[in-house]
Structure formats: structure tokens, C-alpha cells
């Protein structure tokens, strides 16, 4: 019986955030249960007591205002409290910690392509180390998808042309469903797989058992040379192009007079749509577009490399 209950009503709780979400869920359940039962009980009692022909007191008119105020004000207070509670958990969900491992996720009809910082790639499967916070940097190659791991109680749309992030800390070893939760066409219900949360030794074994030799940063560095970025942006470049060392996470002045923070999205767009934002003081027609030449995964590798570039000039750390 308890096993049945567990399968049916208590989904696995495998991330730290899941506890907070469930607490809120059950809080709501109790509260709404009380309201629903209260309303239904009142309706049933009134229906029985005041049914035609019963000998109860009848009365055509009653005072309304005090009741109206009561039943508007009480829900208002409760709702504001709920909003604050739920908002606080949401806020927590939206802000990944600094020590989170960054994993790249690219969705396409109908598969998930995963790349770990070590460079190891997976499809429709993500292997994770228990208790290690993880931040997924995600984008789509075609339509909107959504990474949903019910056991972690988190979900985030994955958009084309835009980066979104989703983070969690797995706290329980096991295999958990990975679903696509945004309708994306024919194979939508097949677009999923498994998240494997592993104990340290098992994870170490999984890591060792790999043929990948090139980390994300190394792959990015290789692309940076191979695709000619270095020719303009490298330390020995003769062209007038901005150095990329240390730009990540720092403000960049644009030709329009605006200033933006160079985040993943900014670098992504600088590579694929260079005309969108021009760095102040640099020619606006020099940087070629790589739209159609670099895949989303390669762009992510380049970003990984640019992030890793120290603030001192040149070189891979």
C-alpha cells in the first residue's frame, strides 16, 4: 500500500529545491482543501436544511456588507502571504550559485544534446554528481523545447536564438525522467531520456571511462584558431578588433552609447549577428557573421573559451 502511494502520489524528490516546492505544494493543498471542503460542506448543509418543505427558518433578506468584507479581506491576506512564499522559492530557483558546474544543453527536434565541461558529450542522458550544484546553459536549434525533470521540480523553456538557464542540486542517487515539456512537433513525447545522479565513486568511474580528450575550453580554443577569430582578436592581430580577454561578465560600451554586460547571450549574438551590437570605437563591418557556419554547440564552446580567457592579454589559462 505505501509502495503504491509512493508511486502514485509522492513523486521522487531528488533535488534540494524539490523539498521547498513540495512544502509549498502541500501547504497550498491543505489550505485549498480546507476552503473547498468548507464551501462544499456549507452548500450541502444549506441544501439539506433549507430544502423545500423542511421546517427551518426562512428569511428573504440579510445583511451583506460585514460578510462581504470578511470574505474579501481574508483571502486577500492569505493570497499575499502565498505570493511571498512562492516568490521567495522562485527567486531561489532562478539564481544559480557560483560554484555550479556548467553543462551545455542544445535541444533540437527531437533530441537533447548535452556537453559536460570536460567535453564529454551525451544524447538524451545527463550524468550528474550527487550534491554538486549544476547549471544548464541551454538553447535550441529550431523550435521551443523545455527541459523538465519532475524529480527535481524544475522546468525551463529552451528557446531558439536565446540562452536560458536552469539549475539544481541533485541530492539523491538514482535515475530520473528527463522530459521535453514544451510541445515541439511529432516527436515531442519521445524527446526525453534520463538523468542519472551518481555517488562520487560511480561518477568518477563514469568520467574515467571516456574517450573524450578535449575539454569545452580546449575545443573552444581550437575553434578560435580554426575559424579565424584569432586572426582579428588574437594578441598578434593587425586588424582593429577588440581583444576578448576578460570581457566576460564585464560592461562593454557600444557605438550607440549604451553599455551592456558581456554575458553568454551577448557573445552568442556578437558571433552570429555581429551587426546587432557594435563595440564603441570599432568598425561596424569588419566582424563577419558566423550564422549558418557555426552550430549552437560550437558557439557554446567558443563562449566557454572566451569565459576562460584571463584578463591578462592572450593565451589559454
Amino acid at each position, binding site marked *: 500500500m505505501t509502495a503504491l502511494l509512493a508511486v*502514485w*502520489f509522492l*513523486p521522487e524528490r531528488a533535488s534540494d*529545491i524539490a523539498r521547498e*516546492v513540495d512544502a*509549498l*505544494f502541500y501547504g497550498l493543498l491543505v489550505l*485549498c482543501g480546507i*476552503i*473547498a471542503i468548507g*464551501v462544499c460542506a*456549507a*452548500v450541502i448543509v*444549506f*441544501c439539506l436544511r*433549507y430544502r*423545500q*418543505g423542511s421546517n*427551518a427558518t*426562512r*428569511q*428573504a433578506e*440579510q445583511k*451583506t456588507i460585514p*460578510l*462581504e468584507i470578511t*470574505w*474579501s479581506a481574508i*483571502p486577500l491576506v492569505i*493570497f499575499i502571504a*502565498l*505570493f511571498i512564499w*512562492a*516568490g521567495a*522559492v*522562485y527567486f531561489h*530557483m532562478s539564481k544559480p550559485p557560483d560554484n555550479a558546474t556548467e553543462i551545455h544543453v542544445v535541444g533540437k*527536434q527531437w533530441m537533447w544534446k548535452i556537453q559536460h565541461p570536460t567535453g564529454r558529450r551525451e544524447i538524451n542522458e545527463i550524468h550528474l554528481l550527487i550534491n554538486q550544484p549544476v547549471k544548464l546553459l541551454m538553447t535550441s536549434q*529550431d*523550435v*521551443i523545447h*523545455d527541459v*523538465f525533470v519532475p*524529480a527535481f521540480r*524544475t*522546468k*525551463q*523553456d529552451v*528557446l*531558439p*536564438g*536565446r540562452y536560458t538557464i536552469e539549475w539544481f542540486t541533485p541530492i539523491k542517487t538514482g535515475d530520473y525522467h528527463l522530459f521535453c515539456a514544451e*510541445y*515541439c*512537433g*511529432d*516527436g*515531442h*513525447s*519521445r524527446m526525453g531520456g534520463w538523468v542519472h545522479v551518481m555517488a562520487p565513486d560511480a561518477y568518477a568511474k563514469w568520467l574515467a571511462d571516456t574517450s573524450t580528450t578535449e575539454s569545452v575550453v580546449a575545443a573552444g580554443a581550437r575553434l578560435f584558431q580554426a575559424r579565424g577569430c584569432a586572426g582579428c582578436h588574437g594578441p598578434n592581430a593587425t586588424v582593429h578588433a577588440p581583444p576578448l580577454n576578460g570581457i566576460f561578465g564585464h560592461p562593454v560600451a557600444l557605438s550607440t552609447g549604451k553599455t551592456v554586460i558581456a554575458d553568454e547571450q551577448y557573445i552568442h549574438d556578437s558571433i552570429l549577428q555581429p551587426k546587432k551590437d557594435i563595440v564603441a570605437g570599432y568598425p561596424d563591418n569588419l566582424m563577419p557573421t558566423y550564422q549558418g557556419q557555426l552550430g549552437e554547440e560550437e558557439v557554446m564552446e567558443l563562449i566557454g573559451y572566451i569565459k576562460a580567457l584571463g584578463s591578462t592579454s592572450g593565451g589559454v589559462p
Partner: protein
Amino acid sequence: MNAIATPQAPPQPPSHEPSYLAVENTVRSWLLTTDHKRIGILYMISITLFFLVGGAAATLMRLNLLTPQGALVTSTTYNKLFTIHGVIMVWFFLIPSVPTVIGNFVLPMMLGARDVAFPRLNLASWYLFIGGGAFALWAIIAGGVDTGWTFYTPYSSTYANGHVIAMATGIFIAGFGSIATGLNFIVTVHKMRAPGLTWHRLPLFVWSMYSTSVILVLATPVLAITLVLMALERAFGIGIFDPAIGGDPLLFQHLFWFYSHPAVYIMILPGMGVVSEIIACFSRKAVFGYYFVAYSSVAIAVLGFVVWGHHMFVSSQSIYAGMVFSILSFLVSIPSAIKVFNWTATLYRGSIWFQTPFLYVLGFIGLFTIGGLTGLFLAALAVDVHLTDTYFVIAHFHYIMVGGMVMAYLGGLHYWWPKISGRMYPELLAKLSALFIFAGFNLTFFPQFILGYLGMPRRYHAYAPEFQVLNVLSTAGASILAIGYFLPLAYFLWSLRYGKVAGPNPWQATGLEWTTESPPPEHNFTVVPIVTEPPYAYDPVAAEEALAAKREQREPAYVR
């Protein structure tokens, strides 16, 4: 002894005119009619047919979900089925249901008017509706569309196969029918009220129809624009929504939900109006807190326009936008809560008469309460993240739209059927089918709340095996529900010929529509009604006295 109910105006003198049904009975006279009552009937027949189409799609989906592999149809077919189900049920059944059938039939009579303000525009609305419906049906027959009723881009604009543009055109055209109906009702309420019928003497159904009409007029054009933009991108590759050609991937969702959230209220406010009418009549008591119920409709219409972002908490909209939409969504639920509390209080110290319309209203209150409360889960940001795009959402909005609106529509049909047809439906059978519908509905949709919490995503043709038991329960419920829906169809038709003759006011109700004959003469009223009473001048004490007196004479209650 007092009257158990004082009508808003004295009963009409006999009219000697033939009823609106008997005036002329050629096909031409029906297809070119400008009589609001006949147009209501035209709508009733057409939305019933659309309901059968949407219901057939739902049946196939539920059958397919009996097994985790989804063995009955292919995923392509399944995706087309849920698109058909959504598009047809939302735009060709729910949105027109109460407004165009009951609203058209009853609203002018409640106002003491001979017709709506623009009778020919009213007929034009029906033709737009049918024209739009024809496009939609053509799109289905020609091969279907698999975008879902939400048409999210860039899937719909760039990647989907099928007749997306034809389907969108159908919705676009039908939308203009909605706008015209909304406009017509607004002007009718402003301009055609009988002498003495002040705003605060209006039946609550009129208030809710008025609020609905405002939404129809303001929101539907946004849908039209959105669909045009989507079609432009699809047909000519103009980059609006698809980032690959320079568009914004989130813009479509903002535009779509800016219409579609208010549309949710188009699909529930009219039902709330029906509930207010019925609950007053069958508890023989004025609706508790008239002003609160009336103005909460207006509040819903206004607030409904500023909560669309609650559909987008995981879409990558900023977390601060999420916070604002969350608090507003909590606030918009307060006017709905006020209505439920007022209806409940109306029963207190009433004289409750258990007839079928009242049973539907009880069903409405229970199901709408559950639907509304589960909406709080979805307004609560962190919980929504887990629940959105799962079966929890499916269950939530079916509780509102099927448990709420369809219950109200059926309740209203039973309540006004004697007026519409001049005949009574068979009471016992009607009560039985109301029970079937209530039971079947809960068995169908309650398991879906659990499925959603367990993490089953919506729009899945195949699913993980652990979800099977709950899916089978849901399908079992759906078959009971289907039987429940077929029964009224059958006995309403039966009653047209064999039902007991109803008389002008079988429920002893107070509205102006009950002062005239059943079925009403073509121009509704022989003399202009002069309104002297507030709505709902029911008296539960007098009702009990009348009942006791009749009992003594060994006669059945009221007029039966």
C-alpha cells in the same frame, strides 16, 4: 398570502400572434432571420455539431492514452487530434456557447426589448461564425494541423506541416463574429432597456454578459493581429517571431496570452451569470450581495487583461515580470471567490427546490471551486514551475471550462428550455444525466491533477508506464461523461414533441423573459414592459407558505 416571487413587470396580456417558432417555417426564413431567438437556435445547432467534432477528437485521444505506447494512433495523428479538440472546443464551442445561444435568446428579453440593437449584424455574426467554422473544418479534412490550439511560434510559423494558415483564417473570421456579437450586446444593454430597468435592476446574467462583451470587443482584435503576423511569417518568411530570421521568440506568447487569458473569462463569466439566475430562482431568494456579484464581473473583466504572463513563468520572461504577474493572478481570483461565497450564502435560509437546473448549478459551484483553487497553485510561482505544461494544467482548466462553463451552459439550457421550446424536458432523466455528467467529469479529470503533480507532461502521445493506471481511470471517466452528454441531446429532441406544455413561467421566476408566452411571440412582448421591481424579488417565506397550502389541498408543489 404574498406571492412567492414578484416578476419585474406584470405578466403580458395574451398576444394572439404565432410564436417565433411558428411564424414561418421555410429554410429561407430560418437562414435569413433577424430574430434574436431564431439566431440563438441557429447557434445552438451549430455549436452542438462542433461539440460533437471536438468530442470525437477527445474520445480518440483518451482511447489512445489507454496504453503507454499510445497504440491506437500515430504521434502525428495524435497531435492533430489535440489541435482539433482545442481549436474547436475553445473557439467554436466554449466561447460562443452561453453568449451566442443563451445570450442571444434571453438577453433582449431580460431587457424587455424586441430584439438586439442590430438584428442584421447579429445574423452576420452567425454567418461569420459559420464561415470561420467552414475554414476550420476544411483545414481538418484536408489533412489537419498539429500546432496545438496555442500555435506557438516558431513551430507554427516555420516548422509545422499542414494547413496552419487555413485554420488560423477560420479562427480569424469567427473572431469577427465574436467582436460583432460583443458590440451588439454592449449597445443593446445601453440602449434597449425597458422603462424602469435601471442598471442596478439588471439581472446578474446581463451584468456578466456585458462584461464578457467588453472582453470580446477589446481582446479578440489582438488575437486577429497575432494570427495575421504568424501567417505572414509562415507564408512570406517575414521575421517576426522566428529568431533564425530576425524575430523575437517570446513575442508570440505575449500577444497570444494577452488575448487568451481574457478569453478564459469569456469562457467562464457568462456561465457565472447563468448560475446567479438559477440559484436565485431555485432557492427562492435574491442573490446574496447583488452589487458584489455584479461588480465582481466587471473587476474580472478588467483585471483579466493584466495577468497574461502567468502562462509564461518558465518561458524565460524576467523573474520580476513573473513576480508581478503572480501577484496580479492571485488578486484576480478574489472576485471569483466573492461570487462563490455569495452564491453559497444565497442558499442560506432559502427554500430550495431541487430541479435539474439547480443540480447543474451545484455541480458548477463544486467544480468551479476546485478549478479556481487549483489556479492558485499555478499562480504560485515556484509551484507553477513544476506544474505548468503538465496534466495538472489540463485538469485545472477543464474544471473551469467543462466543470464550470459546460455545466452552466447545460443548466441554462434546462432552465430556459421551457421558454425556448414551450415544452418541459423529462425531469427524472434529466436529473440522472446531470449525475452521470458530474460523476464522469470527476473521474475523467481528477486523476489528471495527480498525473500532473507526478510529472506527466501534456500533449504526450506516449508516456512512461507508471502513469498508466491514472490514465485508464481518466478514460473510463470519459466514457461515462460521453453517455451523460448524449442523454440531454436525446431527451431535448424528444421533448420538442412529447414534452409537457410548459406555460409562460413554469419556475415562477422573476425575470422579464418569464412574463411573456413560451415560446415567445416574434416580438417578445405585446406591450412594453414597465419595470417596477428589482431582480430576484423572491420570497422564501411565502414560497414555503404556498407549498404548505398546496400540500393541504393535496396538490403537487408549485405548478407541476
